[in-house]
């Protein structure tokens, strides 16, 4: 659907995107992750034709191209910095934004009402946007980005401003859109949601790729070994934990509960004796690292975690 080849974008003294390359396959949910200032928004703006790269190429699927370049009617966009015409009625706003993407007002009106009904806002379709709560405004914004049934949609922080129930609801909607054949580029900080819906993930930092692939592939690359969850009774000698050979990191996750990340190929026997020296073990189990841990683990060592 899209190929980003060696793309660079510089703002006066800052290189926002630095020779970045990746590709998004048709029909997948592709997650673009990174700490603040990693270059996500700049990459997204270049994809959406809002700004041009200084060098490199962004190639779109031929199905998205018309004689004049990328057919913007086939793209959808939920920007991170978003807003709506506060003094305009909800339905009229949605119909207008769909009309800008080439949809007939009659069709857009019908579809908008369907979506509003699904989001529980049908009764309020003639209210002004300013009369809605922040969460409901976010729903209208989400509808506006996909109402015109784009082939490719970029959702920058689609879960922000929603409570956990609505986050789940939006997550279901995104999965449904993928099922219907839409290709989705997702940028979000809600890792537990991203890891459940993303087909592939790209982690970037300082405008460069850190790691990419499926969640499993990334696990293998970033935290190649296993994770052990140890529950201690009483005091823990954390210095002793740091001295264990063959671990890539550790962190406390609860009262007396610690996570220890093992290097690839490390024999568990050697680790267990080190763990026992740190304190009295009450419980011990192996577990899989999740995306949140991968994210933290990846960027903590680089000194700029600010999620």
């Amino acid at each position, binding site marked *: 659907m899209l190929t980003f080849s060696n793309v660079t974008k510089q703002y006066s003294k800052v290189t926002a995107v630095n020779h970045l390359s990746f590709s998004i396959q048709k029909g997948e949910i592709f997650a673009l992750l990174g700490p603040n200032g990693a270059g996500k928004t700049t990459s997204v703006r270049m994809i959406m034709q809002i700004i041009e790269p200084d060098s490199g190429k962004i190639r779109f699927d031929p199905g998205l191209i018309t004689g004049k370049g990328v057919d913007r009617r086939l793209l959808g966009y939920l*920007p991170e910095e978003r807003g709506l*015409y506060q003094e305009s009625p909800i339905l009229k706003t949605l119909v207008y934004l769909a009309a800008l993407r080439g949809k007939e007002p009659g069709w857009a009106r019908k579809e908008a009402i369907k979506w509003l009904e699904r989001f529980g806002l049908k009764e309020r379709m003639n209210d002004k946007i300013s009369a809605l709560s922040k969460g409901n405004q976010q729903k209208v914004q989400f509808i506006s980005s996909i109402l015109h049934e784009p082939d490719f949609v970029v959702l920058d922080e689609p879960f922000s401003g929603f409570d956990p129930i609505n986050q789940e609801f939006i997550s279901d909607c995104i999965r449904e859109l993928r099922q219907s054949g839409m290709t989705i580029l997702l940028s979000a900080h809600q890792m537990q949601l991203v890891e459940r819906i993303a087909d592939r993930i790209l982690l970037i930092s300082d405008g460069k790729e850190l790691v990419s692939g499926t969640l499993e592939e990334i696990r293998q690359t970033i935290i190649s070994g296993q994770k052990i969850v140890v529950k201690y009774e009483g005091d823990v000698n954390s210095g002793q934990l740091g001295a264990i050979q063959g671990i890539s990191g550790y962190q406390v996750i609860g009262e007396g509960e610690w996570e220890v990340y093992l290097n690839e190929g490390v024999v568990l026997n050697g680790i267990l004796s080190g763990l026992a020296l740190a304190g009295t073990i009450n419980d011990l189990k192996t577990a899989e690292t999740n995306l949140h841990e991968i994210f933290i683990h990846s960027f903590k060592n680089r000194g700029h975690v600010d999620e």
Partner: protein
Amino acid sequence: MNNDLKIVWEVTKWEFNRFFKWMDLIKGLLFFMFFGLIGGVIGYWLASDTFTPPDIAVANYGLFDPSSFEHSDLNFIDHTATDPDTLGQKLTQGTISAILTIHSADDASIRVPSDRAWIFILEQFLNELRRDEKIAGSGVDPEWISALQAGIGLSREFDKAGTSAAADKIVAGIAIFLVLMAVFMGFAYQFTAITAEKQQRITEQVISAIRPQAWIDGKILGISGIGMIYILFYGSMGIAGAFLLMQFGIPIGSALTQINPVFLITFILIVLLGILMWNSFYAAIAATIDDPNTSQKTGWMTMPIYPVMLAFFVLINPDSVPITVLGIIPFTSYAVLPARMVMTHVAWWEPVLAILLLMITVHLFRIAAGRIFSTAIMMVGKEPGLKEMLYWFRRV
């Protein structure tokens, strides 16, 4: 319809409907009519007060003949036999309007509760009495004096044919007023439309959907459309008012038939193009403003008033070379040319050239506005300086 044109049309409709409200227009008209009615009633009341002859008690005629105190707008009452205290009481009670005392041929006084408009008429009347008295005393022939005072009858013949009728002058004045109204209205709406979109963070979503040029074109057309609707509305109200006055026997109809249709068409074209030009200009300026509350660029709003000020110089000499040039160049032609056309003969090619140049300027301005808009609209937290703006203009 071509997709680009379709998008421009969608934006035009949206921007028009966003700001144009029929109720606002009707409310404005009702306010206008209400205050017009109040003004009319007050004017009528004042006028009727003025022309109710005041009762002026004459305490002393001086050297003047009492029988000569006759005036259609002043009612003189002989009170030479009444003592001053009684006269003063009558004035306080309001049974008389004033007390006039003539001390000599050169000195008189009037006592009134407060200043009155008819005192001016009284002064003129007394001056005439004094003059007649002086002439009679000098033995000079009054006819000779009249002949001496008569002015010369200077009739005006203009070598340059085509100087317009009063009706055209009225049309020109109204055209300039309406275009200014539409231009300033456009300024207000463009600033609100564009700066609010930036502040409400709508820009990024729209700019990803359509080209900035299509967006700015739609804005210029939609907001210019509001100005034009206002012109049409108030123009129609003016015509309706004229027909209403005709029903009362006021000869507006004959004045309307004197309007030169060529003037009318030229004015309409200049009005339309002037509105479009200034709206394009304002759209470009508005796109560079980050926060309208703190921006220094709001001073640009006074720009369209300067050509109107220049139009007043036409009154001094409408045929001077600088005024002829100002009537052709686009920034000033929309105000200067209509003024020239009603003051002097204008060669046929002048309005043609002025309109052509205005059309080219509108086109260039909309492209410049599109370029500035596409670059500046995403700027948040800072504004481009004059140097950057001129650079973008030069790129056009």
